[in-house]
């Protein structure tokens, strides 16, 4: 690694919510951890009251580029990521053109390196054009410079059981994982919201929990049968948590993710018919929210993934049925998880580090992300002021998307600084500069 990043001394940060220590960062590496470290020539950052955590890793981000640069670009999306405390994001494949070839994943990878705010790990499509008919060249994407390990048709379910089986089998050749968007298409034709008491009153076509659960049940059995690795995107129902818990008890190699919005919001919000609450999978009931929180706390659900999905305003300023599905999430994830999981006593900051960083890096096979905060480790870490309170204002966000369902809510926790490979991309809660030699840095992939 080149040595153009500076030297920083973080004073008095509580590491993972534990003891307050000083952290010396030099040349992209955590050089030393201790008490009363000498600043020398280092830039000193007073971190009293702050929690130091590993840089967050998002397993599920939509950066929209190439194709929908009116919604988001790699540059704006990764700025949002850095501000939200991320040092790596997985860019989903549903761009235009679809990221189903080595060429497109390398393009996204290169854009990410040029931006220099976080590691951008492209996700490759499972099937050509997300059409669910034939496998994309998964091996070519895995062997490309982007070194893709996660494959997903996210947005669309790989619903053909044979195709799903083959994909699970095939990715074993390069230690890949298939990330499934679990949605049985026939059970969700025209679906607009969670099917239940609220949809009955609102007259909106229901998206039943069983459409998610039946696919997850099938896929964990397929993963078991072929001995492969399955990741379940955005788990949203209590029943899905039960099925995944059952699968893990049997030793099936399955991981699962939950979004921040599914940890906090319910389908009651749809009563407003405001499409800012339209998302796929839909907001569910309070019983589902509680089960998801419990599942995340007990490890059934491995990670928080934002499913950050920016949309231009005209795709939300319309009738509910016309509106696009999706919510922004990169700049609110930490606060929502703190609010839903830590302030409720369900998790500690050490647990937070596991579900937002360590486990996520493991799923994506990122070797230099999600590492412990210890001397000799890559300096991907963040400082969080857990006592801060702020009111969500989408108009001031770095993402181009203004579709935050948390608009107007007061949330706890603020990212004070983000160190990405030793360089502060965020300082004093504001964007600093991108990594100075990101383009020359080799992103580490196992």
């Amino acid at each position, binding site marked *: 690694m080149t040595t153009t990043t500076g030297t920083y001394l973080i004073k008095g940060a509580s590491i993972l919510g534990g003891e307050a220590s000083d952290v010396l960062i030099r040349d992209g590496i955590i050089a030393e951890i201790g008490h009363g470290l000498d600043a020398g020539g280092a830039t000193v950052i007073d971190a009293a009251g702050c929690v130091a955590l590993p840089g967050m890793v998002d397993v599920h981000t939509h950066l929209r580029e190439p194709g929908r640069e009116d919604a988001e670009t790699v540059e704006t999306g990764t700025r949002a990521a850095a501000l939200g405390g991320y040092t790596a994001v997985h860019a989903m494949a549903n761009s235009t053109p679809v990221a189903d070839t080595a060429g497109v994943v390398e393009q996204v990878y290169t854009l990410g390196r040029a931006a220099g705010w976080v590691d951008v790990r492209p996700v490759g499509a499972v099937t050509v054009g997300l059409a669910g008919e034939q496998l994309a060249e998964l091996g070519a994407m895995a062997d490309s410079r982007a070194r893709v390990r996660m494959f997903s048709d996210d947005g669309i379910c790989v619903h053909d059981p044979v195709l799903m089986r083959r994909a699970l089998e095939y990715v074993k050749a390069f230690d890949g994982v298939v990330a499934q968007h679990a949605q049985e298409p026939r059970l969700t034709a025209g679906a607009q919201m969670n099917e239940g008491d609220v949809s009955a009153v609102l007259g909106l076509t229901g998206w039943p929990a069983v459409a998610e659960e039946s696919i997850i049940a099938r896929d964990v059995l397929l993963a078991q049968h072929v001995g492969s690795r399955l990741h379940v995107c955005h788990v949203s129902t209590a029943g899905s948590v039960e099925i995944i818990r059952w699968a893990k008890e049997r030793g099936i190699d399955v991981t699962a993710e939950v979004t921040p919005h599914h940890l906090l919001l319910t389908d009651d919000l749809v009563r407003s018919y405001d499409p800012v609450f339209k998302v796929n999978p839909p907001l569910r009931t309070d019983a589902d929210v509680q089960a998801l929180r419990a599942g995340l706390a007990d490890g059934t659900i491995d990670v928080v993934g934002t499913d950050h999905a920016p949309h231009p305003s005209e795709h939300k*300023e319309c009738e509910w049925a016309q509106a696009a599905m999706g919510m922004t999430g990169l700049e609110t994830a930490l606060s929502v998880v703190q609010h839903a999981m830590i302030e409720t006593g369900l998790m500690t900051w050490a647990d937070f580090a596991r579900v937002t960083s360590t486990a996520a890096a493991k799923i994506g096979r990122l070797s230099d992300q999600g590492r412990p905060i210890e001397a000799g480790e890559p300096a991907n870490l963040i400082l969080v002021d857990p006592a801060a309170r702020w009111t969500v204002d989408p108009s001031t966000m770095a993402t181009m998307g203004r579709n935050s369902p948390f608009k107007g809510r007061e949330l706890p926790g603020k990212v004070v600084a983000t160190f990405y490979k030793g360089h502060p991309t965020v300082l004093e809660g504001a964007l600093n500069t991108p990594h100075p030699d990101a383009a020359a840095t080799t992103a580490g992939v196992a």
Partner: protein
Amino acid sequence: MKHLLSTQDLSLENAIRILDTAEEMSAVGEREVKKLPALRGRTVVNLFFEDSTRTRISFEAAAKRLSADVINFAAKGSSVSKGESLKDTAQTLSAMGADAVVIRHWASGAPHRLAATDWIDAGVINAGDGTHEHPTQALLDAFTMRRHWARLAGTASEGTDLKGLRVAIVGDVLHSRVARSNVWLLRTLGAEVTLVAPPTLLPVGVEQWPCSVSYDLDQTLANGVDAVMMLRVQGERMNASFFPSTREYSRRWGFDDNRLRALDDLGMTDTIIMHPGPMNRGLEISAAAADSPRSTVLAQVRNGVSVRMAALYLLLSGDSREPAATRAPAYTTAAPIKESI
């Protein structure tokens, strides 16, 4: 009352107020000159994103009888991909000075969007949105039932509710905005509602509704019922496995000649048969039932104009934003209609 979006949030007081006002309006329809100057100079836009000749002309007649200027705007097929957005349409109508927008839309919640956003400041009347609600249909149904119920009780309708009235709503509840609006309004007015439908055409979550549910029309009739409301079966349901065939549907859930006779045999001489129209004769209702003296189909249409006059009048005349000097002063307050002729 700024908007009329649903019957779920309509208070008993406001519901009775609309029904009582509609009684006064219906007297106008019996005059030689069927016109009041109450909304002179006001502009009512009928914004229809879905074909509905009956509802549109009913609203048009209502607005014209109140002397409002009426603009009909058929925006069928409008969408982000096909043309102008709802936002742009609404802002256009606002710029043209619409005082009230009567909106029919295929998307559930579209009237709520108009009312909740700053796209337009006019009063909004929901004339049917997707599979959500159709509040003026429920009000005209309630108006029709209330007249019937009051007549049986030997009283005038004004000021009364529907306590004790037993209503069966039969058919495709799942996709019916009429059923939803009726369930909420009838609950508010004190009626006892039974939904009768094949299980496939009841929404998941119906068990939370303030009514009972039956799969058996004959049993429901035998239990005693004062009004039977038949819902239209939409053509597109017939090939989507909601029921095996139209004949089986008709046998189990249609109001056929046998069931018409059963009402007589059961001695329920005062039970009325209702239908919001348009009817599929021979499917959900037999010709004999539709044409029988029990049928209130045409009374419902007639009452629809009175109820919509009442809704428009209450929305627009109660509007405190209007500077009184710019309007015909006698008719901008909620003064009794009879004195304002």
